[in-house]
């Protein structure tokens, strides 16, 4: 356990150093990423104002808060993609990971977690500028702030496990882009990334409660800006834990089968 902790600290440090080394590129990347929520924010703020100030329980200021926090959660949702597995397998990059006496899943979790540390540091000025421009309505309690900080890491872990699981398909066939796109479309609609789920029809909201996507995206945002009752705040963390265990367990089982298919062709 001490060794594993040692590894996590070391790998996260390396990832943070590497990403801060490329801070300009990262900044441009993050600024580019801000375009998407700004479009959503402007559209929904306009609709809210046209409909008397509120849509799906959100005012214009509420939407501003939602989409500014959205930018951080979106960054926390960036993990090793299934497309990356194609590259790892085709180029033989996985060989180096398999030779190490540590599960490759730990390597990915630790590396991207280190990246997130750099992302949070780089995000703060962007959030400040967005707050100055769009004037969000946000009054979180200490409890909400604490739950939010746990929830963004929970979101990161859910998405890591889910995309790892999805990536395992690549061991059997390397052309699975269409399947991945289908997954990402479902995620976009059911996670709260496109719009807060309260704006969606009731049946979509009910469906999203039983899917993992919402817990990896909307829930952390709501934890900070949504004034959730205490029990819902903690229930959300429980749902995150459940999905981490389910998706992580499935990913580990799939890995055992998948790695037998590895042909290490590229190296």
């Amino acid at each position, binding site marked *: 356990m001490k*060794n594993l902790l*040692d*590894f996590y*600290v*070391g*790998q996260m440090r*390396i990832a943070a*150093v*590497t990403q801060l*080394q*490329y801070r300009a590129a990262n900044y441009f990347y993050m600024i580019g990423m801000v375009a998407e929520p700004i479009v959503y924010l402007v559209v929904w703020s306009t609709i809210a104002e046209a409909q008397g100030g509120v849509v799906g329980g959100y005012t214009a200021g509420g939407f501003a808060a939602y989409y500014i926090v959205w930018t951080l959660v979106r960054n926390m949702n960036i993990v090793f993609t299934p497309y990356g597995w194609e590259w790892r397998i085709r180029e*033989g990059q996985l*060989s*180096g990971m*398999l*030779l*190490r*006496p*540590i599960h490759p899943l730990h390597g990915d979790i630790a590396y991207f977690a280190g990246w997130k540390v750099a992302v949070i540091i780089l995000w703060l000025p962007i959030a400040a500028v967005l707050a100055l421009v769009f004037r969000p309505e946000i009054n979180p309690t200490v409890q909400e702030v604490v739950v939010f900080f746990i929830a963004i890491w929970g979101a990161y872990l859910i998405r890591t496990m889910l995309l790892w699981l999805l990536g395992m398909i690549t061991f059997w066939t390397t052309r699975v882009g269409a399947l991945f796109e289908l997954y990402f479309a479902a995620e976009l609609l059911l996670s709260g990334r496109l719009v807060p789920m309260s704006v969606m029809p009731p049946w979509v909201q009910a469906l999203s409660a039983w899917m993992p996507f919402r817990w990896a995206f909307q829930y952390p945002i709501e934890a900070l800006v949504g004034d959730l009752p205490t029990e819902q705040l903690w229930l959300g963390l429980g749902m995150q834990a459940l999905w981490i265990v389910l998706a992580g367990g499935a990913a580990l089982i799939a890995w055992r089968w998948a790695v*037998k298919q*590895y*042909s*290490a062709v590229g*190296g």
Partner: protein
Amino acid sequence: MTVIQVEQLSKSYFVPEREAGLGAALKSLVRRKNREVKAVDAISFEIGPGEVVGFLGPNGAGKTTTLKMLSGLLYPTGGAARVLGHTPEKRERGFLTQVTLVMGNRSQLQWDIPALDSYDLQRAIYGLDPAGYRRTRDELIELMQVGDLVRKPVRNLSLGERMKVEFIGALLHNPKVIFLDEPTLGLDVTMQRRLREFVAGYNARTGATVLLTSHYMADVEALCKRVIVIHHGTLLYDGDLAGLSARFASYKTISASFDQTPPALDGYGEVVATDGLRVTLRVPKAETSRATARLLTDLAVVDLTVEDPPIDDVIEKVFSSPVVK
């Protein structure tokens, strides 16, 4: 006692296959044709502790596939391998902490950061005690003569420099078994020699077992007393490097020096080189004694040597021979 034990080890791949053209592509949608390719076909051998063994074969012979099975990267489709008492494909921690694989065309160090940072991470991965790790690291840095190179981002190093720091990273955990897959690939002659010396020194100092593949026979001649030759996935030869010539070379080379220009020597063998008063002949192996005796009897020979052909020629002959299964 054996360190590496391989019994009837096999690895097959199913490769999709079709003719060129749209028609064949459409046909393959309905009826997909796969061909089984036997990359390694029931090979067996054993390697003892401290041995440095050359694993030879032409491209596609199955060398790298075997090395990957022995290092736990690939699951065999048949037979079994044991390395230090472990089944490689299970990739148990006890196994992975005792072996290493260095691939000449692959970097396992992180590209954007100095090698020193990657080494620190290796320490955490292998759970090495900090003081022992620092001692080993500094010792390897000195042996490899890399100095401050380990403080530069890996992407800024030349290929040779990168291979040196790569070697250090691969040996930090003091592996008992070292798999080297074309470690000198693309390096200049000086760098090749330095890496060879390093491997030889490391083997002498630590007693680690080394299995090496290389297309450079200089690597093999400098490091390996024993070679295993594999061709089309099957084992052709396992024994002394010297014995390889005895087994596969069909001729020997006689070099004779004279005190005056000799007459035409075509009757003694095939003249392959003439350098002043020194002539080199190639004679069928069975004819060597008779040709040597005739030369000494008939002519005023000052000096005469009989040698096996260069190992490169022998290997080339082995690789070009058809496989009999």
